[in-house]
C-alpha cells in the first residue's frame, strides 16, 4: 500500500508537501463545482485544479524523478504547457455555448448580444 521510491529525506518531505497541497487545491476546485450556485460561477472552479493544483503535483513529479535519476527530468513541463493552452480554450467554448443556449431561451440574467 505504501510503496514509494527511495528518496533522501529532504526531497521526500518536499515532494510530499507539494503533492498534498496540489491534491488539496484540486479537490477544493472540485468541491466548488458542487457548492457554487449558478453555472457561470461553477465555470471558475476547475481552474484551481488546472493551475496551482496541477502545478504542485507536476513540480513534485519533476523533483522526485530528477533526484531519483540524478539528472534533470523535466518532461512534466509538457503537461503543464498543454494544460495552460487547453483549459482556457475548453472553458471559453463552454461558456460561449452556455451563453448561446441561455440567450436563445430568453434568459434575463445573461447580457444581450454585443452589437
Amino acid at each position: 500500500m505504501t510503496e514509494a521510491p527511495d528518496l533522501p529525506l529532504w526531497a521526500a518531505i518536499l515532494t510530499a508537501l507539494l503533492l498534498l497541497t496540489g491534491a488539496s487545491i484540486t479537490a477544493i476546485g472540485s468541491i466548488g463545482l458542487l457548492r457554487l450556485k449558478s453555472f457561470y460561477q461553477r465555470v471558475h472552479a476547475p481552474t484551481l485544479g488546472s493551475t496551482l493544483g496541477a502545478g504542485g503535483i507536476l513540480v513534485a513529479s519533476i523533483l522526485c524523478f530528477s533526484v531519483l535519476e540524478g539528472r534533470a527530468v523535466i518532461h512534466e513541463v509538457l503537461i503543464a504547457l498543454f494544460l495552460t493552452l487547453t483549459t482556457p480554450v475548453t472553458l471559453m467554448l463552454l461558456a460561449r455555448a452556455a451563453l448561446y443556449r441561455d440567450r436563445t431561451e430568453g434568459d434575463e440574467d445573461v447580457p444581450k448580444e454585443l452589437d
Partner: protein
Amino acid sequence: MSATLLLGWSITISQLILGFAMACATWRVVIGPRAQDRVLGLDTLYVNAMLLLVTFGIQSGQTLYFEAALVIGMLGFTGTVALSKFLMRGEVIE
C-alpha cells in the same frame, strides 16, 4: 526508510484526495442540471484523472505513466471541445 514511509503515505493520501475530487466531478455530471454543467463536470474529471496518473507515476518510480497522462489530457480536451461545439450548434463539424 522513514523517508520512504512518509512519502508512501503522502502519495496514498493525495491519491485519496484526488479520488474524492473525481467523485465530486462525477456527481456534477450526474445531477446536471443542464447539459453544460455535465460537460464541465466531465472536463474536470479528465483533469483530475490526469493528475491522479501523475501521482501513480511518482509512486511506481516509472515514467511510463507520463505518456498515459498526456493521452488522457488530449482525449479530454478534444472531447470537451467537441461537446461544447455540439451544445452551441447542434453539430460537431459544420
